[in-house]
């Protein structure tokens, strides 16, 4: 299969402008004849649904929460990047582009990333106009902070709740369109299958999570904005409901899955405290603006932090990466933390933790300034651990946080299945092998507000409106509905001996051990075997109580975990086949003498794209080569 990314010709910096001025358009009168399905109401989905409805398309929107405002994006804390250069510190579109390509360890598509950097500036304008209360300076201008992997301050923020405020902005825009009758909103609905008919995406099958009713919805195009799949690891910083079902079902219907092994493990999260734990809590990267990471120089030094003198502390990030220091990118900071813990220098009762220390910042800025910047994060830390970070350093440890992998899309954000578009974290597009902080919010909103409204028009202009046949009339819809019914029945019929959570936890442990911060051929092979065994056991021994005809949260979870059990295997296989180290993907076999990633550009300067072959059959790996014309391929250095 040849993958055509459909990148426009011409110089990099002019591609998007040229594209916009030459795309096919749909006339205003025709727009309302087209129906578009948008699954997901996070930043990507809400911004897309609102923008499309404003343009005049008829939109149907879906989310599994009880309100579109509760999508996982709401939890983002730290900020959103934009190349505004309001700080006059040398930022530019070019620099944001370069930082992102380099941050991703040269495994992202140049043209997409450049476009992202270009539209970043419009995002901030749009959000401010909606009333997003970003942090301000005394003079009334917008404030910025720094995030990892950058030497400029380009991150806009709203206290520690940037995602909330951005999502509420998009939710309000969406609500306005719902009120106007241009978007039909379906909360508490879960997409359980994609309908592909005559080679095009024509609709979806949903389950009403309150009544259990299965329904087919047809449309001229389907947008999946369903977020990331990091919950495959069970413990993560994601909301509990985040799942892979929508993209996995689409994958099974033919959409290629790219770079599934690229998962971001975030360095600063509250460490695991017990096996009952249901989620891990992120401590925003913004804390590394003022917090310093350290561990004792000596192994097994069990003294309280305050009793360890300055000279016996190892500020390991500052030591290892002097030019970026505590703001080294996430993959690098996480591995460094793992390394010092592996050396027996970790802190806390489990030894799996490092300190994030604010005492220097409190001395320099005063406690009140530190409080103003991070009060809600410190409060959250206190609530969970019972400790005050004003008095003693925080203890932190890496945790699963984001997935760079996702469904393959071209420059138009369209998957290889015509009419199926994928936005936000659900696609693989812009972050390569490692995402820089504050770039996911940027990408989600770029996709939804500024990219898709153009590229979708180009697709629809080539198809007559109403092309999708009535769901009740086509075989493809019947077949998909029956498949969903059969699977639901099967899950409910097993009545085995173990609850869903048991399988999910075990899957998470396998993935964390074998497909986590450090990977080896042998470990990945073991991981694959273990997942296959677990999957078999799941289908024989899971216990899903209740019925399919009403609100049944066990059934919801079971369906999601069943999909994770398939995806997990693909994650391991992708990690196995990518026989190099890059970004988050650290294969122990490929490292430099000082323990950094050793890429193999000749063999692996490409995006993997996996094609489903049917139940129990090995997937086929395709590749989209990546060309670096504007940024020189180089070994990433943050030293």
């Amino acid at each position: 299969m040849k993958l055509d990314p459909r990148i426009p010709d011409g110089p990099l910096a002019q591609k998007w402008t040229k594209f916009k001025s030459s795309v096919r358009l749909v006339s205003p009168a025709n727009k309302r004849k087209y129906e578009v399905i948008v699954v997901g109401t996070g930043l990507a989905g809400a911004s897309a649904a609102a923008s499309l409805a404003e343009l005049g398309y008829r939109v149907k929107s879906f989310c599994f929460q009880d309100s579109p405002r509760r999508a996982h994006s709401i939890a983002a804390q730290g900020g959103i990047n934009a190349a505004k250069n309001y700080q006059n510190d040398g930022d530019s579109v070019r620099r944001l582009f370069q930082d992102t390509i380099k941050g991703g360890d040269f495994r992202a598509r140049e043209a997409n990333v450049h476009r992202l950097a270009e539209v970043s500036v419009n995002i901030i304008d749009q959000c401010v106009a909606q009333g997003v209360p970003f942090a301000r300076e005394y003079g009334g201008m917008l404030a910025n902070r720094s995030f990892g992997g950058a030497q400029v301050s380009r991150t806009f923020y709203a206290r520690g709740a940037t995602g909330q405020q951005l999502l509420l902005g998009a939710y309000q825009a969406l609500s306005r369109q719902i009120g106007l009758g241009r978007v039909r909103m379906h909360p508490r609905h879960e997409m359980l299958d994609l309908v592909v008919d005559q080679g095009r995406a024509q609709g979806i099958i949903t389950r009403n999570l309150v009544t259990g009713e299965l329904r087919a919805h047809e449309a001229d195009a389907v947008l999946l904005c369903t977020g990331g799949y990091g919950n495959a690891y069970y413990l993560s910083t994601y909301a509990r409901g985040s799942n892979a079902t929508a993209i996995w079902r689409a994958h099974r219907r033919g959409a290629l899955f790219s770079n599934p092994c690229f998962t971001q493990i975030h360095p600063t999260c509250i460490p695991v405290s017990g096996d009952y734990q249901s989620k891990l809590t992120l401590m925003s990267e913004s804390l590394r603006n003022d917090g310093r990471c350290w561990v004792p120089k000596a192994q097994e030094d069990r003294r309280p932090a305050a009793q360890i003198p300055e000279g016996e502390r190892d500020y390991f990030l500052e030591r290892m990466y002097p030019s970026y220091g505590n703001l080294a990118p996430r993959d690098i900071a996480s591995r460094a933390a793992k390394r010092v813990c592996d050396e027996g220098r970790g802190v806390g009762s489990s030894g799996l933790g490092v300190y994030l220390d604010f005492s220097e910042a409190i001395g320099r800025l005063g406690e009140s300034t530190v409080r103003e910047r991070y009060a809600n994060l410190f409060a959250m830390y206190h609530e969970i651990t019972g400790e005050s970070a004003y008095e003693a350093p925080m203890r932190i440890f890496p945790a699963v946080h984001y997935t760079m992998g996702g469904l393959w899309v071209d420059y138009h954000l369209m998957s290889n299945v015509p009419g199926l578009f994928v936005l936000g974290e659900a696609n693989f597009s812009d972050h390569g092998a490692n995402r820089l902080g504050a770039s996911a919010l940027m990408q989600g909103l770029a996709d939804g507000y500024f990219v898709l409204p153009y590229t979708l028009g180009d697709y629809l202009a080539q198809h007559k409106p109403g092309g999708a046949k009535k769901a009740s009339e086509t075989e493809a819809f019947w077949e998909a509905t029956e498949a969903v019914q059969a699977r639901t029945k099967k899950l409910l019929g097993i009545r085995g001996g173990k609850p869903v959570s048991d399988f999910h936890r075990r899957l998470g442990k396998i993935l964390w051990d074998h497909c986590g911060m450090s990977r080896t051929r042998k470990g990945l092979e073991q991981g694959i075997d273990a997942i296959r065994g677990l999957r078999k056991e799941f289908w024989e021994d899971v216990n899903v109580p209740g019925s399919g005809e009403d609100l049944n949260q066990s059934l919801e979870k079971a369906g999601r975990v069943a999909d994770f059990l398939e995806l997990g295997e693909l994650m391991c296989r992708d990690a196995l086949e990518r026989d190099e180290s890059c970004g988050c993907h650290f294969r122990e076999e490929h490292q430099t003498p000082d323990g950094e990633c050793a890429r193999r550009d000749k063999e692996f300067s490409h995006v993997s794209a996996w094609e489903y072959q049917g139940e129990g059959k090995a997937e086929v790996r395709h590749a989209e080569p990546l060309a670096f014309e504007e940024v020189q391929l180089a070994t990433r250095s943050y030293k």
Partner: protein
Amino acid sequence: MKLHLRVWRQKSKESGGHFETYEAEGLNPNMSFLEMLDVVNDRLTQEGKEPIAFDHDCREGICGSCAMAINGEPHGPNKGATTCQVYLRSFKDGETLTVEPWRAKAFPVLKDLVTDRSAFDRIIQAGGFVSVNTGQAPDANAMPIGKEEAEKAFDAAHCIGCGACVAACRNGSAMLFAAAKVSHLGLLPQGQPERAERVRKMVEAMDAAGFGNCSNQYACEAVCPKEISADWIARMNRDYALSLAQKL
């Protein structure tokens, strides 16, 4: 650690409900309240019973999904925290806890602890926004906004739409929720052009959804996990009166 639970069980919107008691044993005080419910649910599953349905998602106090009253208090005993942010160390070993869904006319129970809060969405749909289409915005720094105003707007905008304010109010009023949005947008220059219309429409939607009137008891403020100030209610009342007099 051990807790006795009395939990509201209700099959569906149409059916009646009742309390059932469960013993939760072998608990760790560092567990969250919801993690304790997870444990109880896994045990119920093993016993062939249906687990307790409850809404939750982020489990860090920001999505507004989790919604239950513990011993009659919406979101439980901790000030400024959601249910998912309550840890078992807040309770005494052996304590009895009564766990119920939100009780309010505008939030019908769907199952067990799950309620239908879509009435909140309808209030926002009526006017809780700035009417600006994608692409119409001027440069973000073209309109300076004082630091303090921005901070104040944020305080109001921080509402998570959980509905605890309604559940705590004996009239089932949504005033705190609505006032938070009216004030967030009303405090900012971007919100001025639609200020009068917004408050009018949102109040109408609130009444239509079956929320009660505010009688200034401020039970809402006391339970709000984001400590949204009841002062916003006075501000909204002012805006509403002015909008009726067409003076805003």
